[in-house]
């Protein structure tokens, strides 16, 4: 068997500083904003929270912080954001970023809608030039009151597609304070955690920088996958991959596409890290299809591993 190169991603002392940080919102451009608005409302139950200048549209669960910002343009990732609930978390992130030589600007308070207390935030660009938001606490009760049969529970993680994973590890793990949960042995796919969830961010080499690989919503349990797969079929939205179970994260999954071709994941039973004091060495999974689906099956055309 042809074996690809092995690469062990290195963590420094900053890894794991963040314990209460999670995804908050994601912005992406699509060629047809109104088609996306209709799709996200019909399929995922997301409502229009605000229409902004330049045709931008924010969608959410009807109350609380927004989830998606749609921007007019060719399909690509515009920005992705995290809510920092760690005490002194934002200040620490800013200090470590500046010390490491990253350029940091203030986040427009407009992006911290439904803020708890005074909105605050910062922006740093990731290695592919995409702005990353970190902001103070927001109300998220719109998410967690969802009916999982018709709406997912919450926005759960973003997976960014890139051409080089290593600078992402330097930024997110060794500077900002995420921690590596798992990686493929070839170093081309890695999963980062910033709270109890196995991953709130993942980065994968896909031969193209700066776009969404996929992003994911939580369902509450396995039974919901049946309800969802049947609903998607009724809505003429083809299921692209799954149901199955990922190795890294051990979560159940199913994938489908939005009209612009963004890959959307529904997920449940993700591994949780409850014990901050426990020592855990990131696992290194073989870069083969059966690592990304423990149950076997077939991969969609867009999911590649460097070995078969």
């Amino acid at each position, binding site marked *: 068997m042809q074996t690809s190169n092995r690469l062990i991603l290195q963590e420094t002392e900053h890894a794991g500083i963040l314990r209460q940080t999670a995804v908050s919102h994601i912005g992406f451009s699509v060629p047809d904003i109104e088609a996306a608005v209709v799709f996200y409302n019909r399929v995922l139950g997301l409502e229009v929270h605000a229409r902004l200048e330049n045709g931008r549209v924010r969608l959410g669960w009807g109350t609380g912080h927004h989830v998606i910002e749609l921007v007019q343009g060719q399909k690509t990732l515009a920005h992705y954001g995290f809510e920092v609930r760690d005490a002194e978390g934002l200040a620490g992130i800013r200090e470590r970023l500046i010390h490491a030589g990253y350029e940091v600007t203030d986040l427009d308070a407009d992006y911290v809608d439904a803020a708890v207390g005074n909105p605050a935030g910062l922006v740093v660009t990731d290695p592919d030039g995409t702005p990353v938001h970190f902001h103070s606490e927001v109300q998220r009760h719109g998410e967690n009151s969802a009916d999982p049969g018709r709406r997912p529970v919450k926005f759960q993680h973003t997976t960014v597609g890139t051409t080089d994973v290593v600078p992402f590890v330097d930024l997110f793990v060794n500077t900002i304070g995420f921690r590596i949960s798992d990686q493929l042995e070839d170093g081309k796919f890695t999963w980062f955690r910033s709270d109890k969830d196995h991953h709130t961010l993942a980065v994968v080499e896909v031969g193209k920088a700066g776009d969404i690989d996929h992003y994911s919503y939580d369902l509450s349990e396995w039974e919901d996958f049946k309800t969802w797969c049947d609903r998607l079929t009724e809505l003429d939205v083809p299921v692209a991959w799954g*149901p199955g179970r990922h190795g890294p994260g051990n979560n159940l999954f199913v994938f489908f596409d939005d009209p612009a071709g963004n890959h959307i994941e529904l997920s449940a039973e993700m591994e949780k890290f409850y014990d901050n004091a426990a020592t855990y060495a990131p696992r290194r999974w073989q870069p083969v299809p*059966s690592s990304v689906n423990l149950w076997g099956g077939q991969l969609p055309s867009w999911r590649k591993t460097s070995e078969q």
Partner: protein
Amino acid sequence: MAFGVISEIGYVALHTREIERSVNHARDILGLVETSRSGNAVYLSSAAKLHHEMVYIDAPEHGVGQIGLIAAGVTGLDIARTRVRDAGYPIVSETPLHPGVADGFAFLGPENFLFEIYIGPEHADVVPSGHAPDRFGHVNLHPKNLQAMLSFFVETLDFRISDVIGDDFAYFLRCNAEHHGVALMKGKGWMHHHAWQVQSIADLGKVADRLHAHDLRLLMGPVRHGAGHNIAAYYVEPTGAVVELYTDLEHIYDDERPPVIWPADDRAWATKWSIYDFSEFRSHGLFPATEAVVAK
């Protein structure tokens, strides 16, 4: 209520050259329990707790031993016996092939598949496995001569056609309210799979997790079939036969329901959710045993 001479699909007997491995696999993955052993045969059942729904027979080669069909009472058995004889299928045994049933006979059907038709399956006093399927449900055969096999089930044994796929490609046949007890697809002359009913999609995830825990994988699924509406997951057992676990199968209470016709190019009959390449799935199967091995 059965509308014909057959009321239920009873069991499948497989020849295996690795009997302990086959039995252990059926216990650990599928969740069957051994009800008894006699000589070269091991009898297993699900939560249905019957004397046998699955029989593994120690043999030199893997193969399908026989497929057991339960007749609609004494009258059904008598009529079936006459019809089978009149149709010219060679009778192999005028008495049951295995212990644990009241009466029955066996004969060689189309394409060398051996069938037993019987009545009065006995209950087994066993504790079902914690992950036992509910019951044995159906077989899927891939005959070379589809029309001859179809005629055998429909003309001789009173099965009704629930769904038709394409032109001379596949038929789903029922002998009671369950959408299919036998499925036929034109193929290489083997049995593709034997299928077991489970309670919910949760059980399909659990069998996939059990397979992974044993360094094995699903062959296909979970998928939602269009024909039959069941959700199913498949794996390959040591004999090479495919095993299906299914739930949510359509029940047809109108005996006169006309067949649902699926155009050949409508893949929703096979999968309504994710679109899969079925070529590897259909490359597995188990031929009828070439050598008769009698259970001792």
